């Protein structure tokens, strides 16, 4: 990437951020709701992208962690506690449960792991539904208040959207830092070749558990934002299909790419909305669109970009080789 390219990228990034702040100002409530939902789902998908995309640990439980976070927030804030406390509890709780859920990953991988986590997700749903004393069961918890942030009430859609966007920004920065640190490299090592990683002193056990725990904690953060967003939660949205949706977001966006979840969540949240005009056909069309996208680029949307960049890289590498070659040929 040339210096020029770098400036372009920074400029593009700033433009997108500015657009995310300015454009929604005159959106209606619905538009803001959808955008807030996008921000929340992006956070959850980012967590899964860490676990799955970077560390290569398939998880079908991210939806359950969103649920745990949401219930933590709902229960606590309806009792009058501030959301920030609930957020803390959600993070700690999901981190701990995620850590424990990581243990099976030390023994099994791939589809086996997928199904252990799927089982967990089903269990979590059953607990949400059956433990009325805590979660109000199938009737759900209503009247979840929206928080005051730095003295600003976020009851109105726009302030709440900014709250979600701000949270997304913080999470993104933290994630960016994590990914480019040696930890990020170790997570990738886990995905690419755990046997070799282990023999290089990389404590795969600890990193696996970390990948699960951090990814799950982000699920919890998303959940803690989801509860005040909808202001009512019941167990149904946190069933397996949320986990599958999140998985779809990660893969469709481009698993293992930093910006994958942003795009994946956009597809999963916004595309159905754009297709609504087709009435009864919209989900069918959505499914077809997802399939077409994957047919076109099985590595997700960012896979397309990656392919393009890889081509440029190989061109550069090819040039490098040509230089080596001519040097050798001119040598005696």
């Amino acid at each position: 990437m040339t210096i020029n390219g770098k400036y372009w990228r920074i400029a593009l990034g700033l433009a997108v951020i500015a657009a995310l702040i300015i454009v929604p100002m005159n959106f209606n409530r619905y538009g803001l709701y959808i955008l807030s939902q996008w921000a929340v789902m992006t956070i959850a998908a980012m967590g899964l992208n860490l676990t799955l995309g970077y560390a290569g640990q398939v998880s079908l439980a991210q939806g359950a962690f969103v649920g745990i976070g949401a219930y933590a927030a709902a229960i606590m804030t309806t009792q009058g506690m501030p959301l920030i406390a609930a957020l803390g509890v959600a993070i700690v709780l999901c981190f701990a449960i995620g850590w424990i859920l990581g243990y099976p990953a030390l023994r099994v991988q791939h589809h086996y792991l997928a199904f252990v986590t799927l089982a967990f997700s089903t269990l979590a749903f059953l607990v949400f539904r059956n433990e009325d004393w805590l979660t109000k069961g199938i009737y759900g918890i209503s009247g979840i208040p929206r928080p005051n942030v730095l003295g600003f009430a976020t009851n109105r859609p726009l302030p709440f959207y900014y709250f979600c966007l701000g949270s997304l920004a913080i999470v993104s920065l933290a994630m960016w830092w994590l990914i480019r640190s040696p930890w990020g490299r170790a997570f990738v090592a886990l995905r690419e070749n755990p046997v070799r990683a282990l023999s290089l002193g990389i404590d795969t056990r600890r990193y696996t558990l970390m990948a699960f725990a951090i990814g799950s904690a982000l699920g919890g953060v998303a959940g803690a934002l989801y509860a005040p967003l909808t202001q009512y939660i019941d167990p149904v949205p946190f069933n397996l299909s949320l986990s599958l949706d999140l998985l779809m977001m990660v893969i469709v966006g481009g698993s293992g790419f930093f910006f994958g979840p942003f795009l994946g969540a956009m597809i999963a949240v916004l595309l159905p909305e754009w297709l609504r005009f087709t009435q009864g056909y919209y989900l069918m069309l959505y499914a077809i669109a997802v399939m077409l996208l994957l047919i076109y680029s099985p590595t997700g949307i960012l896979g397309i970009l990656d392919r393009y960049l890889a081509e440029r890289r190989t061109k550069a590498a090819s040039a490098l080789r040509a230089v080596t070659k001519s040097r050798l040929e001119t040598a005696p």
Partner: protein
Amino acid sequence: MSNLLDLLVAGLATGAIYALVAVGFTLLWQTSQTINFAQGEFVMLPAFLMLAVMHAGAPFWLAIILGILLSLLLLGLGFKLLLVDPMLRHGVLPLAIATMALAIGIKEAVKQFFSAEASPFPSIVPAGDVSILGRVVSLQSLGVLALAIAVVIGLTMLLNRTSIGHQMQATAQNPTVARIIGVPVERMILLTFLINAFLVALASLLITPIYLAKFSSGEVLGQAAFIAAIVGGFNQVRGAIAGGLLIGVVDNLAAAYVSTQYRAAVPMVLLIVIILFRPQGLLGRPEERTV
């Protein structure tokens, strides 16, 4: 005690259904290392194809034949060409996700073009009951069990005893090398998906009279069967039988003796325990690699 026997028999009947669907998962894994999240919908769809043919005025037997042919075309050939071909090279996940989308697509299409309502489906097995050990068992369940066993035996023979079977497995395990030694890889993959399509059509024919034809029936069925396949041993077709029957029985016993509210939890706990202590499943083969 008599109660227990009742539950066992009922569990086996349900388990046979799971087994029959689970075979598809194990087959696809063993012969193409793919996971089809739409397998439940694959079992749901042929019944609707047959119903559609019947609505057009055709007799049942003709509907069966056309239904099977359509399944081969759509769920075999079409699936292979449109989804499997572009994605197979990119590992398990993209295809798995694509099949999730496919599952949504099939469900929505059935709902949109047929109906959101459940409809009854004629049975090719006479609808009577027989008495075994004093327990009442429906002939339909026996039919399902018989077919499941026959399919597993047949497929096991095919995969382990014939050259075609070895070629199919070779294709799954290392397609590049398979190609190098002259295995017609494309044909093997197609064959895999055609066999799967044929199986789901048969399964649909036998299961739908019990489960009813409904756009959403694939969800429950697919998930239960998937768990059965993992519990039984994902990389061996015979695992489907063991897993299916076990899950069926455990589910029934759990509902009777644990708690109906947490009924669904028991197979899950069983799944976790089995995977952790015997990762390859009951009848699976451990995956060993030397380094």
